[in-house]
Every structure is written in C-alpha cells, then in structure tokens.
C-alpha cells in the first residue's frame, strides 16, 4: 500500500505542465490536494474538471494553469467564478486556453479514456455553437445507420486526484453518495491519487459501492476534511455559506490573494488550513 503524505503525493505525481483532473461533482472535491498544488507552486498545468468550482478558481487565480478543460464554470447557485472570468476576460494572472464541452460530452470523453478508446461518441452538441467554438468537437458517421454523431477525443489525465470517504490498508477505495464521473476519471488516468477521510482495516461490505481497486491506485493520502468546503457524505456537510462568501473574496484580485496567502500559503498543511478557518470564524 502506497500511503503517502499529501506533500509527497503532489511532489511525486503532479509535474509542471501535467494534465491534471481533480474530480468530484460538487461532492468530494479534493480541495486539500488543490491547495497543496498551490503551495508547491506548480505551473502550466492543464486542468480538467467538469465543474471547475472554487478549487480551480483558486488554482487559476494563483497562476498554476495555462489550459482548462471543463463543461460548467460557475459558483453553483451563487454566480460567477471570478478568478476564472478574470483569466478568460483579461488574461490575469496569465492567459488561459479554454477547451469547453457540455457535461454529456466530457462524460463521454472520460468514459472513452477509461476504456482506452480513442474517442467518445454521443448524440450531443446538437444545434449549439460550441461545436464551432471548439475544434476538438467533431462528428463521425455511424457505420450501421449512417447517422452523424458527435465525437470527442478521449480524456486521459496524467494524474487524477479524488477525495473519498475510506480506503483500507491495502489501498482499496470506497465512495458513497454522489459519485459524478469520478470512477471514469480514475480509470482514465495514468496515475491515481486518492485522499481519504479515514483509513480502515476493512471496508464495510457494499457489493455495489464504488470501489477503486488497490491495483489502479497509485497513492492514498490520509487527509481528514480534505473535501472542505465541499463535503463528504457521512462526515461533514457542504458549507454553502462559505460558497456564498467566496463570491466577495474572489471578486477582487487583492482580497483573493490575501485570502490565499493567509489560509493556504501560510498554512503548512490541510490541518493548519482548517485550523486557520476555525480561528477566523
């Protein structure tokens, strides 16, 4: 079992210029891992996530990324991701190249990546300008019916990072609740790092629970609270009030940088990050 600290896992598995997917659809977003990437000052990352969410707003605003593949880039129920917008609209802190999809399209790309197929196929991107805006959205003819179908290139991250509730001592990972496209992103990746709330002797029996087998997991990191301010079903709830507060923090470049300095860069690790937020509350 490859039990690492978060700093070791990022050091070993996230290189400058890598294609990195921190997945988790609203639930189980690996914030701790994102913050460690910021602390280690990674640059030129190709970030991949269906919903960039606050975690990529932070990485983009801190200058870690030069390219973004995504399908919905807002602060859910609140409004804009201001750091993403500033990068797209004004090139701050640097220009960011956009590879934009729909949820159905990016899901198909992950599924193809997991199966090591060259492309994903869907009855999608119909009647939308997205297919003109993004040259990687193409079409194929069905060899059986002749129907034109949308095709998207397989998504194979260099590394996928997930957060999960539990791993056992062998490195098997169990996820419950909303699972998004996490399993597809895991199987599609060249290496897979999973941060977990708990490491247990044996996983609870769940025949259909999402279990990532230890032989596809590159590293497990014990990181309680690692999805905060998103949530881990059964451990802590989504901090909706924080998502609402983020709007004001991130709206302005200076207040964003001050927040990242105080809570992320000046915190040694995730436990210190959480402690700094408890202190500020």
């Amino acid at each position, binding site marked *: 079992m490859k039990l690492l600290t978060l700093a070791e896992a990022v050091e070993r598995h996230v290189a400058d210029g890598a294609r990195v997917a921190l997945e988790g659809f609203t639930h189980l977003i690996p914030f701790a891992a994102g913050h460690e990437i910021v602390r280690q000052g990674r640059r030129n990352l190709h970030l991949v996530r269906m919903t960039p969410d606050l975690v990529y707003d932070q990485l983009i605003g801190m200058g870690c990324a030069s390219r973004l593949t995504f399908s*919905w880039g807002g602060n*859910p*129920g609140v409004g804009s991701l201001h750091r993403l917008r500033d990068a797209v609209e004004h090139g701050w802190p640097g220009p960011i190249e956009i590879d934009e999809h729909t949820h159905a399209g990016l899901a*198909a790309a992950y599924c193809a990546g997991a199966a090591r197929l060259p492309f994903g196929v869907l009855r999608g991107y119909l009647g939308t300008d997205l297919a003109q805006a993004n040259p990687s959205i193409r079409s194929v003819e069905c060899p059986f019916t002749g129907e034109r179908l949308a095709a998207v290139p397989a998504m194979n991250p260099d590394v996928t990072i997930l957060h999960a509730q539990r791993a056992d001592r062998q490195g098997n990972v169990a996820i419950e609740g909303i699972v998004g496209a996490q399993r597809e992103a895991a199987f599609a990746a060249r290496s897979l790092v999973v941060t977990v709330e708990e490491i247990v002797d044996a996983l609870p029996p769940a025949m259909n629970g999402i279990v990532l087998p230890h032989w596809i997991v590159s590293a497990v990191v014990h990181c309680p609270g690692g999805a905060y301010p998103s949530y881990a079903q059964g451990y802590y709830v989504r901090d909706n009030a924080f998502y609402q507060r983020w709007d004001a923090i991130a709206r302005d470049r200076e207040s964003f940088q001050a927040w990242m300095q105080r809570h992320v860069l000046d915190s040694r690790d995730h436990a210190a990050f959480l402690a700094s937020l408890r202190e500020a509350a």
Partner: protein
Amino acid sequence: MSGWTRDEMMTIAASRLLWDGCVCFVGIGLPSAACNLARLTHAPDIVLIYESGTVGTRPSVLPLSIGDGELAETAACVVPLPEIFSYVLQAGRVDVGFLGAAQVDRYGNLNSTVIGPYESPRTRLPGAGGATEIAAHARQTFVMLKATPRSLVAQLDFRTSAGFLDGNGARGRTSMGGGGPRAVITDFGVLTPAPVSDELQLTALFADATVEEARTSVGWPLRVAESVETIAPPGPSELEILRALHARTREAHRRPVHVPA
C-alpha cells in the same frame, strides 16, 4: 398592490405546468424552486432528476448546488453522472427539461456561455453544463428567466442550447429527439411557440401585467396571440408552501457549518 411578488407568481405559474408522475430534469435556481413547489402541491409523484445523478429526489430545502447532500439523502437512487446523460437523457426517457438561461431569442434558443465574442468575451458565463443535451433530448422543455432588455433578445451572442433554431420547422429537420421549448415563463407571463413559425408569442399574462409591459420587456417585436389567457393569481396554499420552502432554504443555507477538524 397585490399580496405576492412577480418572482413568486413566476415560480407558481411554472410549477402549474408540471404534472404528477412526470420525469423532470431540473436546472438549478428558478427551475428548482418551481419543480419542488409542484412536488409539494399538485404533483407529489413527480420524478425530479438533477444532473449530479440524484434521481427521484425529495429535498426539504432547495439545494444551493445541483449536488447538495440533501439531494442524495432524499433520492430514490443516486447513479453515476455518465449514466444520467446517456441511459436517461440521450435515451429519451425525460418528459420535461426545466432550464434557465442568460438570454433567450424569439425561437427559444438559449445562451448561457458568453456575452460578446466567444474568443474575447465581455462577460464569461458558466457555460453549457447539462443544458445543451437537455434542450436536445427532453420530450419538451420549459425555460424560466426574468425579462430584461438584455435577456429576451433579438440575437443571441452565442447559441448554447437549441430551441427551434431559425424557426419554421428547422428543429424537426435535425436529429434532436426532443420536442423543444413548450413555454418560456417570465415575470410578466408566458410565451409559447406559434404553430408553423415556431416564433415565441405572448399567450398568457399575470393578472396584474399588461400587453404593453410585455412588449417593452422583449427585445424583438413581440407577437400577441389572438386570445391571451389571464393566469390565475396564486392560491393561498401555493403561496404559503412556496414561502415556507424559501424560508427553510434561507435558514439552511445560512446555518454555520462546523469546519471539520
């Protein structure tokens, strides 16, 4: 002075369009309020699906995001996201897609991507999410948005999701399986597509709204149907249930969360 707001009337009018037992793919924001109001009033067996993979969910408060824990805890089942988009949506198993947007044009096409040119947008909006395929594949869609000169527009800055394309049957000549927008619910009343042309026209007004108000709120020369229905004001129980839902929601979203240790 009426005893309710236009926002409340809009949500109530939208909720009345849903029927009991229908399978409804729910967008966040205004649509989510309307769909849950329908569930709490006349449509207790409506099947609400959120793109996070929560199916048949019955939240007691409105979710802030499409993936709040409340949606999973009260769902009939929670499935992987690729399954929602392939087996459920593209397979044609959704009766109603309920969407919001930043802009709608006269043929019910939607923009939620950019204001200004795509390559150098003045305003970068969140993007498509599930909307493009919902608009293509749900048997019918309902669209909810507040009317401003910038929201109901003659020309979209970007077409994220298809309505009736250029109208006059253009949608029917594509491979889209779904029927397109059945109604656009806004804060003066309801627009629906005219037969043949597919152009959105005014077919229903709130009791306190006027044709003149509708015309000035829409960015194209709005056609008015021969007979314009007056939408019944909120019933006391509709209003009471909606207000209680919003009050519970506000309280829940404000509740401080203990930062995990």
